[in-house]
């Protein structure tokens, strides 16, 4: 069972990381969600996989580990808050920049444009330096 869970966490990580590396904000948000599933499961499994054991005090002789559970519970809620923030940020970015690319600029236009901007900024820097002399 441990092996299966480990593999499942691995696959969730795989798809999560791959999506995080995508260029569109929504895909990144999907990836972050998947990745947080993986991390939550990972943290949870640090308390080992217990079957049928209570976390509530009773007459039982052995219990599951409540510490990772408490950690993961807050992690889930915070994860939701962060996902929400990222999503709304991407929405705002899309409206402001007219693109849902993570760099805020559409890729095909990016290459020549960016180089030009860089050259200009270097020149203006040089100018500023000259002025201070």
């Amino acid at each position, binding site marked *: 069972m441990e092996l299966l*869970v480990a593999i499942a966490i691995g696959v969730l990580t795989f798809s999560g990381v791959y999506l995080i590396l995508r260029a569109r904000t*929504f895909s990144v948000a999907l990836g972050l969600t998947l990745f947080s599933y993986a991390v939550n499961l990972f943290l949870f499994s640090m308390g080992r996989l217990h079957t049928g054991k209570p*976390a509530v005090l009773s007459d039982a002789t052995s219990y599951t*580990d409540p510490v990772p559970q408490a950690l993961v519970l807050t992690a889930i809620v915070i994860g939701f808050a962060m996902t929400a923030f990222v999503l709304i940020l*991407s929405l705002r970015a899309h409206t402001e920049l007219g693109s*849902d690319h993570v760099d805020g600029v559409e890729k095909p236009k990016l290459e020549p444009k960016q180089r030009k901007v860089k050259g200009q900024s270097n020149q203006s820097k040089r100018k500023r330096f000259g002025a201070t002399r």
Partner: protein
Amino acid sequence: MVLLILVFAPFLAALLPFLAAQRGRTWIALAAAVAPLAGLGLLLSQTSQVLAGEVISVKYAWITQLGLNLSFRLDGLSFLFSLLILGIGLLVILYARYYLSEQERVARFFSSLLLFMGSMLGLVLAGNLLLMLMFWELTSLSSFLLIGFWSQQTAARQGARMALAVTGGGGLALLAGILVIGHVVGSYELTEVLAAGDLLRAHSLYPVALVLVLLGVFTKSAQFPFHFWLPHAMSAPTPVSAYLHSATMVKAGVFLLARLYPLLSGTDWWFYLVTFTGLTTLLIGAVTALFQHDLKGLLAYSTISHLGLITLLFGLDSDFAPVAAIFHIINHATFKASLFMAAGIIDHETGSRDMRRINGLWKYMPHTAVLAMVASSAMAGVPLLNGFLSKEMFFSETLHQHLLGSFSWLLPTMATIAGMFSVAYSLRFIHDVFFNGVPINLPKFPPHEPPRYMKIPVEILVFCCLLVGVLPAWTISSLLAVAAEASLGHALPEYDLAIWHGFNMPLLMSFLALIGGVLIYAQRAPLFRWYEGLPDINARNVFEGSVRFLYGWVSRGLARIENGSLQRYISLLLIAVIVMLTVWLAPLSQVTGEIALTPVDPLTALGLLVMVCSALLTMAFHRQRLTALLMLSVVGLVVAMVFARFSAPDLALTQLVVEVVTILLMLLVAYFLPAQAPRESSSLLHLRDYSIAAGCAILMAVLTFAVLTRPYQSIADFFLANSLTGGGGTNVVNVILVDFRGFDTLGEISVLAITSIATVALLQGLQLPRARVDNQGRAWSTEDYPMMLGVLARLILPLALLVSAFMFLRGHNEPGGGFIAGLITAVALILLQVAYGQRWVQTRMGVQFPVLAAAGVLIAAATGLASLLLGYPFLTSAFAHIDLPLIGEIEVASAMLFDLGVYLTVVGGTLLILSGLGRIGHTVKLPEDA
């Protein structure tokens, strides 16, 4: 205690000038003078003990692991320096009162001056090398503020930056040197370090330590080849130059030479490095000073030359040379400070510092002229003035060294030549400024004497020059003796501090220097022509050029790494993670641990398979947003089931509800974003991303498996044992959240509340057009609020609220709690919003969502504070069991109130986020309808 006050009073008093800022310069100056006056009084009260040779010290442990202690010691040497710092500091404060104009930021100036004074006192009084280094760096920083005081001037900014770069860089070298010394000696305490001189000198690391420490010394004391910063620091206001660049900061370097003399001196390394650096500096400074047209430039190069002289004396291998060096430190401080002040007066009254224009001032300001002439003569080494005494001691010492063998004549010859130039530039200072024709084209004309009180500091200093020069044995000898003894670390040899030693070589050298100096000045015209012909190397241009080169080089390098692509950054980051984890996991000899695997049950395996497949499908369909989202929700649901399967009912409940909210949110956002993503990554890029993802996945899986198959020691037992007795609940997870780790939870709900408010800010003013058709051209339903959903939502609401209340109430003892209950309530309300619109819900709620979220955090925090009021630590919980008729025993715990805070925050925060998103669509819809 006295020492602590002495060092820290100026730091505290640095605020005083600001308090007096509204009341004019006099009050500000008075406020600034409080600390130095008190310090001077304290210091003088220790005179008898210090003169008796006692060492007063205090020591408090600070960071003992590093060997850093808050330890201070007052012996003869530090007494002498403290006296200079405080005494000249007071005079400079008085002087600066009249030098600065009303319009300038006077309070800031005095405050920086006090900061510098405190740093300097800390430096000379520190009894621990690391502590001394801290103050050393503080002097660099505070002098940066002072040099750059006129920050509107480019020259001031560049001068300050150069000074900081050079002295700060030297400070780093010094730090390294001190660390080497500490490594060899085993302590940073000055007493122990100074006693370990033989140990260090015999050690193989001695040359390293010496060179590093000397780098610090030479940069601070403006020794060749690091001397270039000092003339450019002359862009500082003149009181700063008088204080920092004559009496104190540049003396910090030679102070360190005196302080560490017993530790480092007495070797060939020391002799050659220190002596020749000093000699070179002495000559270069003296010669260059003559050719400066700027009054302060002349004084700056003269200071460099005198510092070289002092350094040279420390390098000579005799017990007597440090005495002469320390004597010259005192003398130089007095006459150079007064000369700077005189130069400042001239600048102030004429508006120029160019000696080609300032001529014949004798007519206009005779009083100042006399003072400046006496001080200048002391600089030249004219008999009956203090400069003469120490210079003669210097000449005599150069004659007594024999380490150079047949080249022993070199030092006295060079010393005499330097002496000649010193006389020549002193003469120029007198003749060019006060005689030599009439003023040419001065900005302020005619000049007149400065305010009475501006001259008093100069008068006091010049008087000291005379007094020491005429009566050395009565005035300075006892102080000099204890200072020199403290520096040497043992008793002094016999010496005679007198004006007249009979006809001998040093007297002849002094005489030669005087005659030679006059001759050089008389023949200055061809010399000036020769100097004009030299290639013009402006240190500032060289320095700025190298800064620019470095800057360009770094930004080119950065541009290579930072190309603006976030995808690239994150992939670099992930690669770094993979590499580091692989390196750390590599020693793991086998992945499988000793714990046997639990058997696989087919149903769980199937669940995991569904989860894995949906995750991969999410990935595969990520370009079709809706499909990907549906797949993602399957993953989330199975995750909830996995939690339930492995004995975590609380997690399962939370995951389930959060999943619902998350998917709703994503649907809302996806509605406004492009429905499909274009295919744009190249296959190479895909390969990179696949490999990175695979690397992460393999590491994660291996790590999980390796941990799961190994035994572990959990801290769970503590919580299990104390949950009921200490927290009053049987649901351990919930008790951990609201009680044991309540502070964490408080932080987390704060984050939730802040995030939700941040989303409101992000959505502020956002108006998005609503699509009429979907991406396949089908029209969206025009019906805003479907009736079926409305009826259903109304039905569900009370039920959901009931469940929510149930979950909340039982949360302490059974799975449930504030988080889960809050999320259930939120889901029910969101459903209502979907059915009837955000406005409809909001008007019926009667309470704003931000208020709800804030109230939640406040209630939770107040619960914690209440326990603080009752005398318990923050967030201690109390509980009691009450018997109610009909219902039975009920437990009332303060943790319940805390959980209520959690509940309200979750409801408020979640609704805030979702209703904000619901609103942006409507804002556009309304005008269309109208």
